């Protein structure tokens, strides 16, 4: 079995993406029902911006989170650890 470890810095960044991503899950479901709530939409847009920034930062360092993204050579999308293998504790 391959040994797939994530360093502290990568974990911190990934968890930040997960937090901001969760805000987007909530604003998305709410806006599906209340598309005219301008305040909620502003919240969504500002977190969407933040999400894109964090993702670019992460993907430039650690490889694609989605297959539609660019990768350095060799194709880094396959790099572990895969989501179910991560120990999220930050030492």
């Amino acid at each position: 079995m391959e040994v797939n470890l994530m360093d502290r810095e990568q974990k911190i960044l990934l968890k930040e993406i997960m937090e901001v991503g969760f805000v987007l899950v909530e604003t998305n479901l709410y806006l599906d029902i209340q598309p005219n709530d301008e305040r909620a939409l502003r919240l969504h847009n500002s977190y969407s911006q933040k999400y894109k920034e964090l993702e670019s930062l992460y993907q430039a360092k650690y490889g694609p989170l989605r297959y539609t993204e660019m990768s350095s050579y060799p194709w880094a999308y396959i790099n572990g650890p895969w989501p179910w293998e991560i120990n999220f504790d930050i030492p």
Partner: protein
Amino acid sequence: MWIYEKRLQYPVRVDTTNPTLAAMIIEQFGGADGELSAGIRYLTQRWTMPTNQTKALLTDIGTEELAHWEIIGTLVWKLVKDAPVDEIKGTPFEAHYVNHGKSPFPHSAAGEAWTAAYIQSKGDPIADLHEDMAAEQKARATYEWLINISDDPGVKDTLRFLREREIVHFQRFGEALMILQDELNSKKFF
């Protein structure tokens, strides 16, 4: 279409090795009111939804359920991955192990294979949204029973997160149903 995002929705922590608990949590992987049922149910009901709001909501909640299914599979995997066979023998996970090894599999805690008979799509949005609200409450209740029998603090933390998502989904489905009923009632041409 769907694009996989290579991350979990929630940082799953598991503090112990516990095949018995894994065998119980499998209920939400492939049981009647589990995450697979939820995802397939909502994604299947989309075609006959009459409004853009309900089409969007079923798409996005259905997609979130698949992310929850991945979280449950991860809980099960982390609870058994380091278990020696001796620690599996004599536990309720033993019957799972002889067929699937340590791989998660969509069946209930009692070992019944997942079936589409767990879900419904009536082609009637009022019936479907009521089914969806009931499904969220049944899943919420299952999470409460699972939290009651869990003694792993990490597992409990993730189960509490998933329990809360059921409540949020119930709320959103309820709002969608109210808006839809108002719209249907305001149509004068019936």
